[in-house]
């Protein structure tokens, strides 16, 4: 990491991405100024306090990160073309194009189910952002719940394997239990779908 004494390196990727070769030590004023500057370059600039710094750098791998409510709101702004949003968010044309299609699809379906007005007719950006946040919360809960179910299935599969091992070794086991486990697994798999 830079402490001021080593040479800093700005990495410029051939696909247009930018990176530092290591995190840069800044004082409070420099941080403030840097963020203010970035706000003149990009439309959505947020900060995040972290414990561990990133070790992979531009060129090491492909990077991806989650989308914020502000970014999603911009995707729905029909007055803006993909190229424009790409510059505003610091994301590639391809990623905006792709995300716009996927997000609009998911959000339209979710929005209708939630009984909200047509997303393209909502004029109040705050109202739209509120729905987007609800959608994001629900998605997050869905992911967490699916994760929990998968864990439970794994546990049951292990129990099933153990019972099968006992059967193959000729040990008497309660076969009813095996069938119960199978039914539970099937039910949980349906819940995931």
């Amino acid at each position, binding site marked *: *990491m830079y402490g001021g004494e080593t*040479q*800093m*390196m*700005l*990495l*410029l*990727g*051939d*696909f247009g*991405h*930018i990176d*530092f*070769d290591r*995190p*840069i*030590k*800044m004082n409070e004023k*420099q*941080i403030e100024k*840097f*963020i203010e500057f*970035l706000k003149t*370059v*990009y439309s959505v*600039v*947020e*900060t*995040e*306090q972290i414990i561990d*710094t*990133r070790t992979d*750098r*531009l*060129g*090491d*791998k492909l*990077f*991806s990160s989650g989308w*914020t409510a502000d970014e999603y709101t911009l*995707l729905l702004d029909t*007055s*803006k*073309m*993909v190229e424009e949003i*790409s510059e505003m968010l*610091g994301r590639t044309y391809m*990623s905006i*194009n*792709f*995300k*716009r*299609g*996927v997000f*609009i*699809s*998911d959000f*339209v379906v979710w929005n209708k189910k939630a009984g909200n007005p*047509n997303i*393209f007719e909502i004029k109040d950006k705050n109202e739209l952002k509120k729905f987007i946040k609800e959608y994001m919360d629900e998605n997050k809960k869905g992911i967490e719940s699916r994760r929990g179910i998968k864990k439970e299935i794994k546990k049951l599969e292990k129990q099933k394997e153990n019972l099968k091992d006992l059967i193959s070794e000729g040990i008497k086991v309660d076969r009813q239990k095996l069938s119960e486990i199978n039914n539970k697994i099937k039910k949980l798999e349906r819940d995931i779908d």
Partner: protein
Amino acid sequence: MIITIRHDRYVDFKIPPWASEEQTKKIIKYMEQNFPGIKRREVDEPPRYTGEKGETTSKKWTPKDIVLLFSDLSNEEIANKLKRSKASIDLTRGAKTTEIIAWAKKNGKKMPIGINTIKECMEAKHK
């Protein structure tokens, strides 16, 4: 774009942002002015997924196809109906719907978008 800040004030990009040529110039200028001695290094980025072979043959989008993009069907359902790949719907839905909505708003067309507006928009764009 998210800037990460560690407790000891080490600052970083959460992930490397993309920048247009103009933005890149601006960032380089800022960094060189505020962090004297900073050097530039050009980096080869890993290749991105550009689709499987055979996915690129483009099937023309008709107004009937496009109207489905405005429905409340999921991308998967539309892909099945139109016999296109889900990736092609993912890529097209956002661009086409926003382009047509922007045109419809500009030209005072009624919402929600119907097949006639789509036809008009396509004709206007091809003039």
